[in-house]
Structure formats: structure tokens, C-alpha cells
């Protein structure tokens, strides 16, 4: 008797679980997985969102579908897009989020919130700022994959090559939420049939303030992280130039005078290989000269760049964290006040390892 009751109870539980425990299904071929999303500025409280969704065809071709909607909140635009799409739109496979420069100038705080709150969004998502309208950028088809995957592959490839510093959603959110750092994002631009990486967009809190000049990009990266495969092009005096590749960088920070106004000394060590040289010969003297000039130029660029940062009161490299990690009882407010006047010196030490197979 007791056994029968037991069996009955178990059966009922299984039955109930199966009847009422159902959750919303998202069957792979019945959903539209947005792969890229772009935000454009309309007016003060309206934005236009463009979502790109790959359309997988049975013959293994991938098409592109773009949907556009405008509303106050980015989440709401998604529901609007949902209304246009024949399949449920999900954003778990989002690869790239783009903000037009206009949007970025007006602040992306609200838009970022939807990215960090939604658990289905990948932490490896690439966030970028686009020159011009993202709507136009996303509406085009590039390569043989859908636009989202194309863009993410483009950015990822460039990060691996060391052309832009590695940033993904996690790192962006880390900087964005941090008191001691300001975020930066890669800046992309559409040029004819292609998209290319134009530079680095710098933010103060959630507002875009300026973009980094291309020639400052290298030293910016070298100060930010240890480069593995950097490339640097150097113009020499008489219209000659030299390309140094496979640059391996290491930067060492030293902070002195912590009690009063801290001074930051940064030593950057570079090791690279000459790949292209328009001069005549690469002998010892020549190489020594290239080395010297490279060091000098980089130091100059770094100084200019840092000065501009201080002027704008932004800290994308994270000097603040370096000072904090060396200061007991670090006081945030004091640092913020001090920052524009802090002395930050960069010393570059370059080593040319090889010069290729010819002299």
C-alpha cells in the first residue's frame, strides 16, 4: 500500500513538472539571432537602433537582414524590431555593438546598461564607435559572412595583430564603472566597400571626447599593455621610412613622491624587427640612428598624448590605478584634483633585434 502511494506521488510529481515546468523554447531555427547592433542619434531623447541578423539559408549561404527601429530605451527598440521580424529576435549571439559618434558624444550610459544587465550577452562582445551613421554601415554587406560576424572578425584580427588595443565588453565595463580609469573604444569607419579601423575613441565617463591620432596609437598601446606583435612606422629625415614589426613591448611604471604630488616615470622597452626600409644599407650606424630616432619620436608623442589627457582630465591608460596600488590610504578625490598637474614622464628604450635577410 505504502509503495503504491509512493509510486503515485512520484508519477504525479513527474507529471506536474512536465506539464507546468515548461520554459520558453528558443529553437535554433525559429529565432533570429542578432549579430550586430548599432545606435544612431535622432534627438535628445530618441535613438535609432539598427540590428543585423544573419539569415542562414539551407544551402549554407548566409544572408543579411537589417531591421531599424527608434525609441527612447534600447530595450524597447528591441521589442519594436521584434514586431518587424518573422522570428523571435534574441541577442545572445550579439558580436558587435556600435555607437555612432553622435550618440557617443551625448553619452552612452543608458545604452550600456542594457548590455551589462542582460545575462545573455557575451562578455566578449566588441563595442566600438563608428564614424558616421551606424545604420548605413550595418546595412551593407561585407565579405561572405553576415555583417556582425564580419565586423567582429575584423576587430578581433586587428587586436591580435596589435593594431588596436584589446577591448571587449568586459574590459569596457570595467573601465566604464571604474573611478580611476576612463574607457576607450576602437573607432571604425566605413570606406566604400570596406570597413576599417580608424583609431581609438576616448571617453570621459560615458561621453566621447576625442579620438587618438593614428601616430599616437602605438605608444598608447605600449603604455596600456604588453604588446606582442606591434607594428610601427617611422619616418626618417630624408623622406625615407622604416617599418618595424613584431614589436614586443614591456612597460615599467615607477611612482615617486607619493606623499605630496606623485610623479610617474614610465620606462617602455621595445624589441622589434626591421621589415621594410627604403634607405640604402642597414649597417650598424644606420640601425643605431633608427633606434635613436624611434625612441625620441615615441617619447615626444607620448608626452603630447599624456598632456592632452591631463588637459581633458581623462585617464584611459589607468595612471590612477598605478598610483593607487602604490599608495596606502589612497584618497580618490585628492588624486582627481592632482591629476592634471601630475608629472608623467615616458622613457623609451628600443632594441632592434633583426633586420631581415638582407643587409
Amino acid at each position: 500500500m505504502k509503495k503504491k502511494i509512493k509510486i503515485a506521488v512520484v508519477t504525479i510529481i513527474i507529471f506536474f513538472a512536465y506539464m507546468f515546468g515548461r520554459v520558453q523554447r528558443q529553437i535554433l531555427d525559429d529565432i533570429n539571432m542578432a549579430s550586430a547592433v548599432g545606435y544612431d542619434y535622432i534627438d535628445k531623447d530618441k535613438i535609432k537602433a539598427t540590428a543585423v541578423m544573419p539569415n542562414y539559408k539551407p544551402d549554407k549561404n548566409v544572408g543579411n537582414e537589417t531591421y531599424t527601429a527608434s525609441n527612447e530605451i534600447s530595450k524597447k527598440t528591441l521589442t519594436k524590431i521584434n514586431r518587424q521580424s518573422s522570428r523571435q529576435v534574441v541577442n545572445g549571439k550579439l558580436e558587435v555593438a556600435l555607437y555612432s559618434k553622435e550618440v557617443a558624444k551625448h553619452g552612452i550610459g543608458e545604452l550600456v546598461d542594457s548590455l551589462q544587465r542582460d545575462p545573455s550577452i557575451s562578455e566578449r562582445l566588441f563595442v566600438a564607435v563608428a564614424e558616421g551613421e551606424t545604420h548605413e554601415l550595418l546595412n551593407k554587406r561585407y565579405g561572405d559572412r553576415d555583417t556582425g560576424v564580419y565586423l567582429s572578425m575584423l576587430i578581433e584580427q586587428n587586436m591580435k595583430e596589435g593594431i588596436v588595443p584589446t577591448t571587449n565588453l568586459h574590459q569596457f565595463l570595467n573601465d566604464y564603472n571604474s573611478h580611476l580609469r576612463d574607457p576607450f573604444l576602437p573607432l571604425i569607419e566605413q570606406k566604400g566597400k570596406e570597413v576599417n579601423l580608424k583609431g581609438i575613441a576616448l571617453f570621459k565617463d560615458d561621453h566621447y571626447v576625442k579620438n587618438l591620432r593614428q601616430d599616437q596609437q602605438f605608444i598608447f598601446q605600449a603604455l596600456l599593455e604588453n604588446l606582442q606583435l606591434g607594428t610601427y612606422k617611422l619616418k626618417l629625415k630624408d623622406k625615407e621610412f622604416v617599418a618595424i614589426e613584431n614589436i614586443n613591448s614591456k612597460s615599467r611604471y615607477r611612482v615617486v613622491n607619493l606623499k605630496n604630488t606623485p610623479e610617474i616615470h614610465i620606462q617602455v622597452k621595445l624589441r622589434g624587427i626591421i621589415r621594410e626600409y627604403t634607405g640604402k644599407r642597414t649597417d650598424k650606424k644606420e640601425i643605431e640612428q633608427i633606434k635613436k630616432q624611434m625612441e625620441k619620436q615615441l617619447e615626444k608623442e607620448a608626452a603630447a598624448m599624456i598632456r592632452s589627457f591631463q588637459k581633458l582630465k581623462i585617464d584611459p591608460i589607468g595612471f590612477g590605478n598605478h598610483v593607487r596600488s602604490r599608495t596606502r590610504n589612497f584618497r580618490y578625490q585628492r588624486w582627481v584634483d592632482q591629476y592634471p598637474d601630475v608629472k608623467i614622464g615616458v622613457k623609451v628604450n628600443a632594441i632592434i633585434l633583426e633586420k631581415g635577410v638582407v643587409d
Partner: protein
Amino acid sequence: MKSVIKDQFLVSPFLVLFLIHGMQYGVGVLSFQRDIAKVAGHDAWISILITGILVHIIIWMMYSMLNKTKGDLITIHQQTFGKWIGNLLSLLFILYVLAESTTVLRSYIEIVQVWMFPLLKTWPFALVLLLSVYYVVSSGFRIVTGVCFLAVVLPSYLIFTYVVPIEFSTFRNLLPVFDHSILEMAQSIKGSILSFSGFEYLLFYYPFIKQPESSQKWAHFGNLVTTLLYLLIMIVTLAFFDQAYLQKVIWPTLMMWKIIELPFVERFEIIGVTSWAVVMLPIICLMFWSASRGIKEIFKLKQRSVLVFLLLLSFIVCCLLIDRETIQQYNTFVAEIGFYLLLGYIPFLFICCHIRFKMREKG
């Protein structure tokens, strides 16, 4: 006096390692970093170390009491405070155990609801989980231990996942060391002791260990494993998140899993949440086993029927906790009690117990 437990129901002393570690390592691991870092900042890992040592002391205290009485919590209470007050105190303890088990269950279901299935109803899932709990607990303590053991061994591959986020970490975040006052450190212990809780169930299963005295080193070893594991997770978390960002994140461990990308699987957090079903199962099982065993001892009832009653009770409470805020309130309430129980009551009991024994020896 208590009846002696038959030899075939006892477990080897070294399994205490898994019982202690498995109970400590639960739902808290997914979210413990934030509460500690709130006060201790980047020194939160020191707080983990200090708490680990504190827990070692408490485990020593428990063994010292248990070795004297050769029984469980109920015997200690009865021998120290007499039958009536002792039983009342035991009952209160069991009530806490029950409340804690509901917390674990509900917290896990909440994680599933937030991270995997927003539309998952609480009750059918709770029902199925509690059914598996009934299956385990009604099979006896050996099986409970077995589940505990497997729940430690099978998901142990997750250790590697704590190493992956190092790629995106800045270990400079950890400096300078000892940048917080002693008061702040002491406050942070309150947050971290809860992630260590779970060792107190030793008070219930002690009589089920073969040569229980020899199991003490394994209990300490289990706590050591927990401490080291927490230390690893904490250090990686502190390096992975900026302090300000960490304060915003509710489940930092899950956020760290989100960054993991394997060639065949993107988005590891779903696998992590799934694996956690196995991790948290023995915790609920042992809690219910302890509670039902305790009630059986006090009231001389049948453990199986007590168990069914307790499961039903927990099920109802679980269904009543609907949204994040209520769950949070309930969790904080239980956590508050847990803190005073672990750091206040057990040492108090330890002192009382020893005074009582001293008096008895004299008298």
C-alpha cells in the same frame, strides 16, 4: 543514552574531508566576493585567510566537544543544559538548518531563473529537486556521503575555469596589501564566514564516522581545501574586476565564466550553472538529513515521515519567496542568524560544555 549506530551505516574518516568541503562549497561561491569586498576592498583575500583560520579553530572546538560526549549536537545540548532546555536549543538549531536549506534551494533556483530560464516556475523545479533529495536522504547517510563525495569530485574540473579569466586580469589591483584597518577586516569576516558555513553539520553526523576521533585531521584538511579554493577565486576576482564594477555585480563568479570561450562551447556560464546543480545537491541533502535526524532523536519519530514533512515545509517556504528583494531579505535574515550561530553560539556552547564536564568531574 543513545543507541549505537550499526557498523554498516558508518563512513570512513577520510570522507569527512568531502563532507566538510562539499558543504562549504555551495551556492555562495557564485556570489560571495561582493559582500567581502564591500568592506575589505582589494584586501578581501586576507579576510578569506583569516576566516579560514577562524573556522579551523571552531572545528577544533566542535571536535573537542564531540569527542567528550561521543554523541551529536542533541547529546551535547542534553548533557550541558539538561533535557528540556537542551532539546529546545537543539530544536532552534534545527530550525536554522531548515531555514538555511530553503535559502540554498531558493538561491539556486533564482540563479537558474536569472541566467538560464527567466520563465521557469519555481515550484515544479523545486519539486523535482526535493524529490531527488528525498531519494538521497531516505537511502541513508552512506548515500548522502556518496552524493557529497561525487559532488566534489565530478565538478572539480571547474577549478580550471577560475584560471582562464587571468588573461583579462590586472593583478596590480591587489596592491597595496594590508591597506585596510583592523576594524574593516573584522567587519569583512562577517561576510566571509557565511561562505565558509557548512562545517557545523559535523555536529550532526559525527556519530556516523568510523573512529570519529581520527577524522579530525580530515575535517581540517577539508576546510583547508575550501580556504585555498576561495583564495584562488577571490584573487582572480579582484584582479578581474575593478573595485567599483565588482560592487555592481551580483554573481561575480558567473560573470567570470562568461568570458570563457572554448572551441566547442561559447558562453561557459550556462555549463557552470548546470554543473552547480550537482554541487548544491549534497548540501541540501545533508541539511535535510541533519534536520530530520535531529528531530528523530528529540521526539523519537520515524525519520522518513519527518523528512517528508520537512521537505513539504521547505517547498512551501520556497514557493512563497517570489522576487529578488524577498529572497534577498530572507537570505540576509538567515545569514545574520548564521553569523551569530557560528561565531557566537558554538564557542559559547564549547565553554558551557567544558565547564559542565569540569563540574561533573569534581562533583
